[in-house]
C-alpha cells in the first residue's frame, strides 16, 4: 500500500513539476537608426526569461533602465522623454512557442513560431515572430527579431527628431537558457 502511494506521489509530482529553462542575462537589443544620423540603438544584457520546455510557454522581463546606450544624453532622453521608465520600469513578454519539443532541438537551428503579448509602458500588443532554437552543450539558445512601432505603445516622438528615429523599431533577442534545478 505504501509503495503504491509512493509511486502515485512520484507520478503526480513528475507530471506537475514541469521542466524549465531560464536566463538572467539575456541580450535584448533595439535599433531605431536612420542612415546618416547618429545611431539610435541600445543593449540590455540583463533580460530575465523562463521557458517551460514541457508546454512551450515563455515569459520574460526586462528593466528599461538597464538599456545601455553609447551616449549618456540619448540614454537620459530615452528614459525620461520616451519610455517614462520611472513610471513604467519594466517591459514584459508572455507567450507560447507552437509545437515546441525539446527533444527535436539539436545543434542545428530549428525555427518555431513564437506568439504572445508584449507589454511596454503598460500597453499590450500581440507579437507573432519566428524564433530560432538550437542547443549547445547544456545551453538552449534562442534568437528572434521583430519590429514594433512607437505609436503602438503611445510613445510620442517630437517632430524635430522624428526624421532621426526610424518609424519601425527593430528588436532582437539572443537568450542562452540553462536548466532550472
Amino acid at each position, binding site marked *: 500500500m505504501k509503495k503504491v502511494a509512493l509511486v502515485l506521489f512520484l507520478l503526480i509530482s513528475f507530471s506537475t513539476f514541469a521542466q524549465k529553462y531560464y536566463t538572467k542575462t539575456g541580450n535584448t537589443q533595439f535599433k531605431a537608426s536612420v542612415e546618416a544620423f547618429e545611431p539610435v540603438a541600445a543593449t540590455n544584457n540583463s533580460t530575465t526569461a523562463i521557458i517551460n520546455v514541457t508546454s512551450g510557454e515563455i515569459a520574460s522581463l526586462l528593466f528599461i533602465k*538597464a538599456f545601455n546606450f553609447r551616449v549618456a544624453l540619448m540614454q537620459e532622453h530615452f528614459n525620461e522623454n520616451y519610455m517614462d521608465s520611472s513610471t513604467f520600469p519594466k517591459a514584459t513578454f508572455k507567450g507560447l512557442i507552437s509545437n515546441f519539443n525539446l527533444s527535436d532541438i539539436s545543434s542545428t537551428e530549428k525555427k518555431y513560431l513564437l506568439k504572445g503579448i508584449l507589454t511596454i509602458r503598460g500597453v499590450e500588443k500581440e507579437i507573432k515572430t519566428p524564433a530560432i532554437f538550437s542547443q549547445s552543450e547544456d545551453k538552449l539558445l534562442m534568437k528572434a527579431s521583430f519590429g514594433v512601432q512607437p505609436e503602438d505603445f503611445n510613445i510620442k516622438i517630437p517632430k524635430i527628431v522624428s526624421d532621426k528615429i526610424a518609424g519601425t523599431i527593430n528588436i532582437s533577442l539572443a537568450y542562452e537558457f540553462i536548466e532550472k534545478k
Partner: protein
Amino acid sequence: MSLLKKNKLILTFLFVLGMIGFAFYTLTMEPPTSIENRKVDFTGSADELLVKITDHTEEWQDKIVVVSGEVSSSDDKGIMLSRKIYCQLKQVTDLQKINPSNNISLKGRIIGYDDLLEELKLDQCIIQ
C-alpha cells in the same frame, strides 16, 4: 583694414567656432558615467538593503549601492548574494576572485526587482 589683419580676424573667428563646435560635440556625445565614478546611495549588508527597499523598489532603480553578503552561487555572468540578490558583474574575469560561501562586498547598480525569479537584480557590479 589691411588684408593681413582681415585674414587674421577670419582665422581667429574660425578657430573659435571650431572650438565651440568641438566642445558642444564632446559634451553631447559623452558616454554614460561609469559606475566607478558614481556616488554611492547605500552601503550595508544584503539583508539591510532588502529591508530598506521592499515595497518601493521603483524609487531605488538606477541607484548605486555597496552591498556585502555571502556568495550563495554563481553562474558565468554573475553571482547570487545571500540567495536574494543577483549581481551581474561588469567584468566576468572577476568571477575568478570569488570563492563560494565567502563573504564579499561589491559596488553595483540596482536595476529592479525581478518578479519572475523573485530576486533583486544589480548590474555593472565590481568587487570591492
